[in-house]
């Protein structure tokens, strides 16, 4: 498959991806037992889409998906976290050419690359950008936003690390490996 940053397929992937992000974010969040903290399956999905369709798709799915989810289910977008969703989507996608999942290989090396990228991106996004934007835009107390962000960030890093890796493994299995055909002797 040709890797194009902004083809028709990417547009559709953004549209459907944002819709799935909305539904997963609303219905498929797993309660952890800690109040107001859920394991978000939507970010694992975002990671899969970014790796398959590239950083542009990741940025748009994160941004549009999160903004629509907030608008449709909670009435008003929480802009600072919407921006961070876009940011992490973009960062997940930065290694799409390196991992090249469409070749059907997602082995130890790719898993490590993926997890280092996702953990770094989310650490910057949730531990730094989200609370700083919260303070700048909403002037909320510093220690409150950092506590929230750190709890959510850790939950998301773990969820993308476990579920995201599993999703990518499952996706890789559906692709045909190059050179997987053999001529019978």
């Amino acid at each position: 498959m040709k890797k194009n940053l902004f083809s028709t397929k990417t547009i559709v992937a953004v549209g459907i991806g944002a819709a799935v992000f909305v539904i997963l974010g609303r219905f498929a969040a797993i309660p952890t037992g800690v109040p107001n903290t859920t394991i978000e399956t939507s970010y694992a999905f975002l990671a899969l889409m970014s790796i398959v369709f590239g950083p542009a798709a990741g940025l748009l799915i994160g941004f549009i998906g999160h903004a629509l989810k907030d608008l449709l289910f909670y009435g008003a977008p929480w802009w600072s976290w919407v921006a961070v969703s876009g940011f992490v989507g973009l960062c997940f996608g930065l290694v799409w050419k390196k991992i090249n999942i469409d070749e059907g290989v997602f082995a130890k090396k790719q898993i490590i690359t993926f997890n280092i990228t996702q953990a770094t991106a989310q650490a910057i996004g949730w531990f730094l950008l989200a609370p700083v934007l919260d303070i700048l835009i909403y002037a909320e107390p510093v220690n409150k936003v950092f506590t929230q962000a750190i709890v959510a960030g850790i939950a998301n890093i773990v969820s993308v690390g476990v579920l995201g890796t599993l999703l990518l493994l499952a996706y890789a299995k559906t692709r045909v490996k190059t050179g997987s055909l053999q001529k019978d002797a």
Partner: protein
Amino acid sequence: MAAEMLSYLDRNSPIHRLTGATKLLCFLMWSAAAMLTYDTRILLAMFIGSLVLFKLSRIRVQEVSFVLILILLFLMINNIAIYLFSPQEGVNIYGTSHQLVHLVGRYNMTLEQLFYQFNITLKYFTVIPAALLFIVTTNPSEFAASLNRIGVSYRISFAVAIALRYIPDIQRDFQTIAQAQQARGLDMSRKETLGRRVKNTASIVVPLIFSSLDRIEVISNAMELRGFGKNNKRTWYSARPFSVGDFIAMAGVAVLLAVTLIVTFYDGNRFYNPFLAGV
């Protein structure tokens, strides 16, 4: 399971007659104004204004009450969290301390803290009616056209249109899969251990994601066949020309934003401080 979602409500009202582009621009300027300012006078004025607009739109409160309850719950939790984490935030911001109730340690309740949290809550109350109005009075197919109108590339606008079009479909898929898996005995509630819950959720999420990936394939092939993305511009079936009302609405909200910016940053402080005046 059947969680309600905000959707377009067809009415004949002055707000509905505005074009989608106008409403989008007004909504963005309105949220920008509400986000930037902490000036209580402006927030109150905007809140009253948004109630008037809500009345004009002929949308009944019952039609959006499910979302209002969620928002109120969220605001309550948020307010409690702010108080727990930073009970003296208001004192820091306003610089004075009028103690109302004496409580343990730093948790003394002050007038400043109450005023600060009142402002935070008010900020939401000014944005919520505007956001609700924008969603329930804008036809989804017009929404994409209006994004394009204000300068967003039509490819991205189309992606948003696809998202809005397919959210109900994917919600239905999700429920079908979830019910099928629950019929087989999978439990996603708190009764299961965390590990099992993750595993059970995965068995719903994975089929949903892979069926959606197939959907991407089908839709993008169909669009490719119809020559989508060939030209630099496209027209929209649901786009409407601007009328006088649109210009009045946009000018009105633009003036509001300008006034907000001037009043808010005039004295170099985002907060309106009633405590200084009294001293």
